């Protein structure tokens, strides 16, 4: 069994009207079944309101499913006794870099998680050193987070999660508020963690370019998982993605249009080099 396993997950949001009677319920995720193996790089795609953020909040127990069960590292998230263990195993990075940094100095923020877990002081320092090293932010350890760029703040947030020694890290649109450079920085840090520290990564995003490197992709729409497979399998279905209001990477789209125009190339081209190679043969 994988590190994260969901079976027939469902979740309802309740909307209360002004009189406070009869809440309206709204199904945010419905019948989601997943099985994620340790060490994988997973991407979850979907446009706004597809339920991807709701799913992310389930993965570390911030929300508890209304239906179905979710296991993180063999622990049921609806079991309140295990909740802190689950949150330690599955760390979470949020979208807004400003609203998730608690410390007034970078190194203190990274130490926040371990402090909460009751780790001894010496061990906290070691963890802080290691995690700052892993995301390449050692030089900024004594800085105030307010003076960092968005990408740097997100790297600090990732270091803060890494210091808790999670098995799995969930990133909920970590690059949505960043400029292209910041986006590259953050993705590089995430990829390094996945490859070198062997942390399972679940990246939730609506940028197609970020998905290309994933091992496995889930596409969500209206609370359902509508497509899944390797990036190549997903991106060879350009029409279906477009019907879900998702953009495909430009190269893939170009290759698709060329194919429609009669050029003999395969579907699911992901990178520029690949397209160049295919065209030059």
């Amino acid at each position, binding site marked *: 069994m994988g590190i994260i396993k969901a079976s027939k997950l469902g979740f309802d949001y309740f909307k209360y009207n002004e009189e406070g009677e009869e809440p309206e319920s709204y199904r945010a995720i419905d019948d989601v079944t997943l099985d994620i193996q340790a060490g994988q790089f997973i991407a979850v795609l979907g446009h706004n309101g597809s339920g991807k953020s709701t799913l992310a909040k389930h993965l570390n127990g911030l929300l508890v499913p209304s239906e179905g069960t979710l296991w993180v590292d063999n622990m049921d998230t609806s079991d309140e006794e295990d909740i802190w263990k689950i949150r330690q195993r599955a760390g979470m990075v949020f979208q807004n870099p400003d609203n998730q940094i608690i410390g007034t100095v970078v190194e*203190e923020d990274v130490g926040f998680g371990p402090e909460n877990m009751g780790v001894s002081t010496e061990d906290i320092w070691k963890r802080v050193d290691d995690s700052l090293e892993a995301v390449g932010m050692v030089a900024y350890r004594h800085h105030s987070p307010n003076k960092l760029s968005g990408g740097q703040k997100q790297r600090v947030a990732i270091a803060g999660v890494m210091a808790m020694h999670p098995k799995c890290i969930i990133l909920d649109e970590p690059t949505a508020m960043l400029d292209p450079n910041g986006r590259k920085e953050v993705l590089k840090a995430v990829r390094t963690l996945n490859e070198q520290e062997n942390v399972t990564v679940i990246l939730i995003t609506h940028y197609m370019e970020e998905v290309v490197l994933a091992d496995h992709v889930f596409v969500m729409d209206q609370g359902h998982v509508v497509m899944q497979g390797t990036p190549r399998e997903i991106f060879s279905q350009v029409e279906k993605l477009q019907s879900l209001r998702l953009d495909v990477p430009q190269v893939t789209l170009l290759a698709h249009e060329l194919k429609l125009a009669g050029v003999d190339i395969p579907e699911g081209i992901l990178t520029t080099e690949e397209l160049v190679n295919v065209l030059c043969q």
Partner: protein
Amino acid sequence: MIRDITLGQYYPADSVLHRLDPRVKFIGTMIYIISLFVFKSWGYVLGTVFLAGVIVISKVPFRFMVKGLKAIMFLLFITMFFNAIFTPGEVLFHIWIIKVTKEGLILAGRMGIRLVFLIMGSSVMTLTTTPNQLTDALESLLKPLNKIHVPVHEISMMMSIALRFIPILLEETDKIMKAQIARGADFETGNLIKKVKNMVPLLVPLFISAFRRANDLALAMEARCYHGGEGRTQMKPLRYTGRDYAAYGILAAYLALTIAIRVFLHW
């Protein structure tokens, strides 16, 4: 620009005072303030010497100490003025119906010295201690209150979060203000009531965004296993070193001397 504001008035320098445990500095300030109220006359020489010594050790330029006085200038003058004219005693001179007495002048002088030294003494603490260290010191000193169910850890956590978010909210205020000005809002003209009314389009979005941030931050803290002060360890626990014990010794000696001067010499 608004990003660069410093909170509190910490002046970074490398001095013994900067490296002292914040708890020592806090208690030291308390002792100094008490001593100011114990002295009656010549004892202030000791107070002056002590303050001067501390200022020299702190390596903070003197003008920073005086800065804090500007805010209380008005209060200082009023206090001194009323003390001088309303104290009964030996009349020195008359101006119209105002009588200035010898006792009044002495009392005014004493009040003035007390206020000035009090502000300067506490400035020494705030100039050499970061707001964060102060919060830590308060948490540690107030810990006994935990027994009567005062949420000491939670209070200090709120204080440090407030410190972290003040610059962010200031920046946001600036942004909203510019956005509203761009759409024709007027924050400058009109009388006070009109000005206050004009603040509404600034305050409403600011409050909404502050609540949203609070919600996000609470989620992020929970996601990082925050569950109150129970079972929590510290990355930078406050630990007394030899230096701090020495400082406590000096403070005790100062307090003893203060009391001795008052009791035996009646200064």
